[in-house]
């Protein structure tokens, strides 16, 4: 498998407080990486470094320009900063995912709109296309933002805690969609629910200032301890499970 992005000795900090230290890590084509770690461990920062939104204080991010043009990364932020009362429709929000391909003076063609229709259909919110965001539930909003990340047919998809707002009824279906996507798209997904995602991911990246890559979709409490990654495994199914607070 070829490498899409390589992080070499990456360190990052906010106002001098170190958040990531000496991160060495490769994103391989076709991988489905579950990014886990405690709150404040630097998961979001890691994604932002990969996107080029945060400049690392040391090290470099090497993009495989043959395999991955920079505009082929789809991103679902953890916190949607958009003002839901803004006069903009769901479809127009989704279309903003094409801006990176189309440039500053973008015009949206009917083909672009068809692409938007297609992803909206896929995620089951096509009937909301012309609604304002303030008419949507939390889960529908999250799906709209996911459409925005998907519309540009990304080669790499960075998802920051996508399960957070998705209604439980949609959660399984959502992971199934990701699993299908993963046949052509490399995915890196931050999540707290290690138990659930271990059914779908191929590997784990444990982020707590340092990054430990675990090349398997199975991970045990002992391994997490060894990676200095203090999070609780949530058991599902018959075992009585711990309900963790949503973050």
């Amino acid at each position, binding site marked *: 498998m070829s490498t899409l992005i390589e992080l070499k000795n990456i360190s990052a900090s906010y106002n001098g407080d170190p958040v990531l230290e000496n991160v060495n890590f490769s994103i391989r084509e076709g991988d489905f990486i579950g990014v886990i770690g405690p709150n404040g461990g630097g998961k979001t920062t890691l994604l932002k470094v990969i996107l080029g939104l945060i400049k690392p204080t040391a090290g470099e991010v090497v993009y495989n320009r043959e395999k991955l043009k920079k505009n082929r990364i789809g991103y679902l932020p953890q916190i949607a*900063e958009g003002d839901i009362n803004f006069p*903009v429709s769901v479809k*127009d929000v989704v279309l903003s995912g094409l801006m990176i391909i*189309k440039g500053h003076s973008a015009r*949206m063609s009917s083909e672009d709109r068809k692409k938007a229709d297609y992803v909206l259909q896929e995620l089951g919110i096509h009937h909301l296309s012309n609604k304002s965001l303030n008419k949507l539930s939390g889960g529908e909003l999250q799906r709209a933002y996911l459409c925005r990340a998907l519309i540009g047919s990304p080669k790499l998809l960075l998802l920051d805690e996508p399960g957070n707002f998705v209604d439980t009824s949609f959660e399984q279906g959502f992971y199934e969609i990701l699993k299908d996507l993963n046949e052509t798209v490399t995915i890196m997904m931050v999540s707290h629910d290690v138990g659930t995602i271990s059914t779908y991911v191929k590997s784990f990246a444990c982020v707590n200032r340092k990054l430990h890559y675990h090349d398997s979709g199975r991970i045990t409490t002992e391994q997490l301890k060894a990676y200095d990654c203090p999070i609780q495994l949530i058991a599902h199914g018959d075992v009585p499970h711990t309900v963790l607070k949503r973050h």
Partner: protein
Amino acid sequence: MFASFFEYDFLFKSLLAVLFGSITAGIAGSYIVAKKMVFLSGGITHSSFGGIGIAYFIGMSPVLGAACFGVASALGIQYMASKQKVSEDSAIGFLWAFGMALGIIFVYLTPGYTPDLMSYLFGSILTIHNTDLIALAILALILLFFFMRYYRLILYVAFDEGYARTFSSRVDLFKYLLIILVSLVIVLNIRIAGVVLVLSLLTIPPNIALLFTGNFAKMIIISIIAGFIGMLSGFVASWYLNIPTGATIIFTLVLLWVISRIVTRRRWE
């Protein structure tokens, strides 16, 4: 014949002022209303009065003075807010009163009579200068060009700045350009509605538009049309009733909002 030509001339100029005023206020107003920057715009408006006062004192063009102050305070507020040392609304409140105070002091210190002062406070479309009109026309053209060419970028920067940074490295540049354009719109429309009333010229038409649409582009177009109707009818009414134009225009705009609210009422129930 000379008299009628003269009358024709300044009526024609007022009509042009209404046209360019509604275009500029409609575009800039939609941006500040959608992005919830009305308070910031109030700060820009009132601090620009400081520029008017100083311009009187040193004998330069009041509009130029206001423009310098308006743009400087807009950039100052954005800069202070982005560096997070001062909260944005405190910075605005500070500049708001400081600009007015400066203006009052310098107008007071200016020797002799300042005949135009009232027109800067409450607007005077009938006495608008050719240079102001030309400046307003150029600004309208720049805004039309800018918003048509960069419509998507402006929309997405205004809606979700954080995400816009994932596809553009010039988000800050565009934000600063937009706030400069907004301040120029405010300053040049002060000739029409005055420091005290100009903010309504920018905020009422977009709020009328929002009653009809949830789409930013349509909001801008409806704002321009609503602004034109409201301003023109206000102008005509003030002419026949012989009452102050700026105030009448604001009155007709509010009336237009009320009518639109009633007309669209059924949609919202």
